[in-house]
């Protein structure tokens, strides 16, 4: 048993470190299986700065409000002011490496910003847009 754990740990160390490419490729496949078609960064770019009225608070919300318009720069949480690390993998290689993390924040941030969950198509568009930054 112990040996098995050690072997598993070693092989985990030897495998290629998690890479943005792998996580995104897997997710894009899942989104396509759920009805998405060709992903276009342009659609996500347009969505990034589009203001959406939040009916409860009466305020305009947009992705760039917290993440900044330039994805290579750090953002700032709209209410708490907490620094948000850049989304662009070119300056922040930790980004887009963990599918669970990606899905968690899609759920939270789409609902907060747009008032609804994002569709598989929209999520894919965002991922290919961010990946290229």
């Amino acid at each position, binding site marked *: 048993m112990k040996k098995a754990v050690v072997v598993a740990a070693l092989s985990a160390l030897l495998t290629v470190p998690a890479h943005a490419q792998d996580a995104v490729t897997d997710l894009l496949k899942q989104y396509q299986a759920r009805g998405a078609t060709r992903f276009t960064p342009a659609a996500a770019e347009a969505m990034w700065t589009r203001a959406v009225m939040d009916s409860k608070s009466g305020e305009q919300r947009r992705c760039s409000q917290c993440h900044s318009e330039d994805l290579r720069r750090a953002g700032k949480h709209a209410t*708490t002011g907490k620094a948000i690390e850049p989304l662009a993998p070119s300056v922040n290689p930790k980004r887009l490496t963990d599918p669970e993390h990606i899905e968690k924040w899609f*759920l*939270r*941030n789409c609902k*907060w910003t747009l008032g609804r969950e994002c569709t598989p198509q929209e999520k894919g568009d965002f991922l290919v847009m961010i990946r290229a930054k």
Partner: protein
Amino acid sequence: MIRALMVAGMAAAACAAGIASAGELRLDVGTNDSPVYEKECGSCHFPYQPGWLPERSWRRLLSSLNNHFGDNAELSAANRDVVSAYLTSRAADHATNQRSRELIAALPASETPISVTKVLYVGGIHGGFLDPNFKGKPATKTLAQCPLCHQKAARGWFAPVTYTISDDNFRVDDLDESNNPMPVPSWLKMGTKKK
């Protein structure tokens, strides 16, 4: 040496108060021991130890994560179950440490607060920092950043001996006294740094 004396003193105090069990100090809320809770909640704010709120509060808070003080903080079903089990089983009303007991004793049974910093036991003693007349540094809008002053917050130590408010952080002469009904007496200003 000083630290050893301090620890010994605290241990003695704890024993005297009858709140040490199994050789363990139980004066304060202690450390978190749920990696899932620390990761999921601590990535946005200080992960308050479960002993800061009663079980009913944690349940109420967890049932409204889609509007968590104006933010969406929803968890996956699996993680929510882990976090819920951790927080409710270790909540202040089940905790045996002195601080949680004091907090519960000061909390009316009819209240179910979901904000740790607004619980009277916490908010009351810190109220002055949020007064607009108080221009202390770090200038804080909320009390949600415990470790700014309580350096041992992550280890669950909030005792007076473990916080630091330096002259640089909180200077009496930074106060705006123009509309202060109780001006700071001059003797209190002596020895504080001049700008």
